[in-house]
């Protein structure tokens, strides 16, 4: 399941809800791997006071769906949960959560890592930071 949110969210509550929406999963998984990314108050040598995240509506959802499907084809996992923010964020706000459930830890870890890494390089999001030195578009590391 892929969701894009314009408002702050609690990743742990979302993970709990996703598992509750799938009661048939009970006893079917032995591992859950979770990645939560949140906004630092510093980046590339400057204090960050605020960030806005722009995205390409339509293409973003399509690519996150595609990456989730690719992970499910490569590893034996249950339906991953991917939630990503857009809009205005403050330091400490969660930006992204990727949660993967599987029978075994190796598949859960690998699929979770795959989804977040592919998301970072392919999903059309752009970060714009407000820093002590002014505002700037973030460039990939």
């Amino acid at each position: 399941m892929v969701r894009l949110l314009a408002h702050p969210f609690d990743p742990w509550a979302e993970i709990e809800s996703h598992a509750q929406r799938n009661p048939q999963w009970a006893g079917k998984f032995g591992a859950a791997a979770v990645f939560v990314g949140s906004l630092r108050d510093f980046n590339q040598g400057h204090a960050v006071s605020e960030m806005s995240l722009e995205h390409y509506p339509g293409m973003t959802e399509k690519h996150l769906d595609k990456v989730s499907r690719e992970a499910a084809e490569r590893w034996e996992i249950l339906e991953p949960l991917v939630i990503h923010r857009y809009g205005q964020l403050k330091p400490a706000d969660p930006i992204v959560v990727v949660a993967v459930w599987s029978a075994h830890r190796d598949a859960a870890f690998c699929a979770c890592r795959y989804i977040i890494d592919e998301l970072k390089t392919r999903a059309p999001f752009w970060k714009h930071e407000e820093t002590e030195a002014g505002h700037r578009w973030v460039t990939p590391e």
Partner: protein
Amino acid sequence: MNTIDVHFFADIRERFGKGQEFIDAEGIHCVKDVWRRVAGSCGGLPPVARVLVAVNQEYAAMDAPVRAGDEVAFFPPVTGG
């Protein structure tokens, strides 16, 4: 529908001063033709080698074909996550 729906994002959107433009598909064969048409006299654009492209919301190359009714987007390297 004889137009192409062109989208711009992030710093490229700022350079163009708008997020979307419809152009006449006449004379347009590939992405590079779209870029030449919209870039026109717009200054301060990044070198074309650093611009990413999507056609109908799929990544594409500058020489990818474009037809009337297509959606073409230009944007910088992505920074999500």
